[in-house]
């Protein structure tokens, strides 16, 4: 267990380092400074700005400062923070290049709860619809109910989330004004974007769960349970469910990553002030500090979720040895 966690931690560090380095190299390799896009500044102003964001430093020094935890700075970035060690390893994502006087940390702290609420809603939809659909399909294979659930799941897998979002808004916000078209603030604002974001994953969960249930229900040990006289309901719930959940749980890692990715688009469609829309805005406006910061936050989130998934996996299946395939 401990060895597993340590090993994952080492891989995690490697991944984070790779993300930082690749982002940094990408940033540095762009022709022209990041601030030069919108308007031409007076040379002296430009020099001041460059100095403020360390753009006048040599590359290695910028890289070290970005990585941290160091303070290579004599004059400080945001005035009063000069005494603080900066850099990503000091959990300081630096100042935003676009939103002057706001740090990336502040932007993330403000927007992450919004995105988390959206993501959790989406995951909730995915599990609720997916598990229910899979269960119904697997317990009544070959019936009309099964066929309906499978057609719906194939559709869900074939439609991109932004298409589902557009159609949902057309149907349930414009034609029948039940939910708000866009925006943020009330629980009603969460329903449509959460559904659109979660639907493809619900479809996949339904497939996995159906296949998993059918597979476990056909195993010899289920016959043993029937021979013991265990009621069917208890067989499904106690004997078949845990095994059938294993593939669903191992899908949760990729699903979480996919939901984060999808949120970039969904937050844009529904104008939700989440981390994803900040990321897109940052990337489009060449706010590299912001874009890299969000990338890192998402990397950490996905990584942590994957570790949790592996732990849950080991909890369900006693045969899984965490140390072996870490």
């Amino acid at each position, binding site marked *: 267990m401990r060895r597993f966690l340590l090993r994952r931690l080492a891989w995690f560090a490697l991944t984070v380092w790779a993300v930082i380095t690749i982002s940094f190299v990408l940033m540095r390799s762009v022709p022209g400074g990041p601030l030069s896009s919108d308007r031409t500044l007076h040379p002296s102003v430009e020099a001041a700005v460059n100095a403020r964001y360390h753009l006048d430093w040599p590359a290695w020094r910028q890289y070290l400062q970005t990585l941290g935890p160091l303070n290579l700075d004599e004059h400080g970035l945001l005035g009063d923070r000069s005494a603080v060690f900066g850099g990503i390893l000091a959990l300081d994502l630096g100042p935003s290049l676009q939103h002057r006087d706001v740090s990336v940390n502040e932007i993330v702290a403000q927007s992450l709860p919004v995105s988390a609420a959206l993501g959790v809603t989406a995951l909730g939809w995915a599990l609720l619809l997916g598990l229910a659909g899979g269960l119904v399909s697997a317990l009544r294979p070959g019936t009309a109910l099964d066929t309906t659930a499978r057609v719906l799941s194939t559709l869900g897998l074939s439609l991109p989330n932004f298409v589902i979002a557009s159609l949902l808004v057309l149907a349930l916000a414009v034609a029948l004004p039940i939910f708000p078209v866009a925006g943020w603030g009330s629980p009603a604002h969460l329903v449509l974007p959460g559904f659109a974001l979660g639907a493809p994953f619900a479809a996949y969960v339904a497939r996995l769960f159906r296949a998993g249930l059918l597979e476990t229900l056909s195993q010899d040990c289920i016959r043993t349970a029937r*021979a*013991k006289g265990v*009621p069917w309901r208890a067989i499904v719930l106690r004997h078949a469910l845990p095994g059938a959940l294993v593939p669903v749980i191992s899908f949760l890692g990729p699903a979480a990553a996919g939901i984060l990715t999808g949120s970039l688009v969904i937050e844009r469609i529904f104008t939700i002030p989440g981390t994803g829309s900040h990321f897109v805005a940052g990337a489009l406006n060449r706010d590299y500090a912001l874009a890299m910061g969000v990338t890192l936050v998402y990397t950490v989130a996905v990584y942590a979720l994957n570790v949790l998934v592996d732990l849950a996996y080991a909890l369900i299946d006693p*045969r899984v040895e965490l140390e072996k395939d870490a």
Partner: protein
Amino acid sequence: MSLLEVRNLRVSFATPRGSVQAVESFGVSIDAGETIALVGESGSGKSVSALALARLLPTPPARIETGEVLFEGRDLLLLGERELQRVRGKELGFVFQDPTSSLHPLMTIGEQLEEALLVHERLPRTSARQRAEWALAEVGIAEPKARLTAFPHQLSGGMRQRVMIAMALLTRPKLLIADEPTTALDVTVQASLFALLRKVQREHGTALLLITHDLALVSTFARRTLVMYAGAVVESGLTSELVARPAHPYTRALLRSVPSLSTSLDHALPVIPGTPPDPAHPALGCAFAPRCEFALTACHQRRPALVALSTSASGAAGVRVYNRRVACTESERALAAEVSS
């Protein structure tokens, strides 16, 4: 009245290429405390028959076409699912072939043992656990208390099968059906498991239906034996008589192909020529006729029924034939001739 009386059981399977007759006709009668062996090569329908009589086959694709399964006078094929559940595991215990796949991999030994008690006797969990521990001790598992929290993959194959036996016996069933209980295990483990089965059977007075392809084993174990071929019982009778004087040519061939230590390696072991029939294309006549050395033209045209060996033929020579039945046109004459000579 016998404990279990199965009559005329017919089972078919729906396959993409049409229906396949897996069991053509199966019948058995078992008294309380009795041991009966069901012998046949793989695919002869012996396991399917055993599963079908407790309605453990998945339907579809399986379908029980006809038959009666009278267990203590009640027809199991007519019971509702709920009543059937009260019989399965309570009156009727099962030990399956492969203990590795038959035990639930994600549940502890204790949980799996206690389950039957919780379902059938509604015991409180602590006393169920106590009974499970005793049951493990009874089947010869050391440190039974510690084993209760183990998972199946942490035990050896022999231990797992002991757990299966303990599980089947936990509710003191009147009949135990053991489907090739040792085929998946080492030879050395086999002997000890059979000793165990015999011990618990004697102590509890449980009837045993032992499904096996091992004829040598049968002669030491079961009082009566049924031989199945191609989905039908072809011969039945007291094991001692059946082994000494097999009536059906298939039984004869089966007995001849049992290797013994005295068999010289220079001589090839006699094998039954040909292959078992394809259940998708059943023959018109006797299913064994194509492989039978005694087959007559009539054998290919008409399927012989399972009939009692005529007592007149055997009785004349002063041999008492106990409830001996055989399904062979030719054998009756042949046996009669042999006995009277």
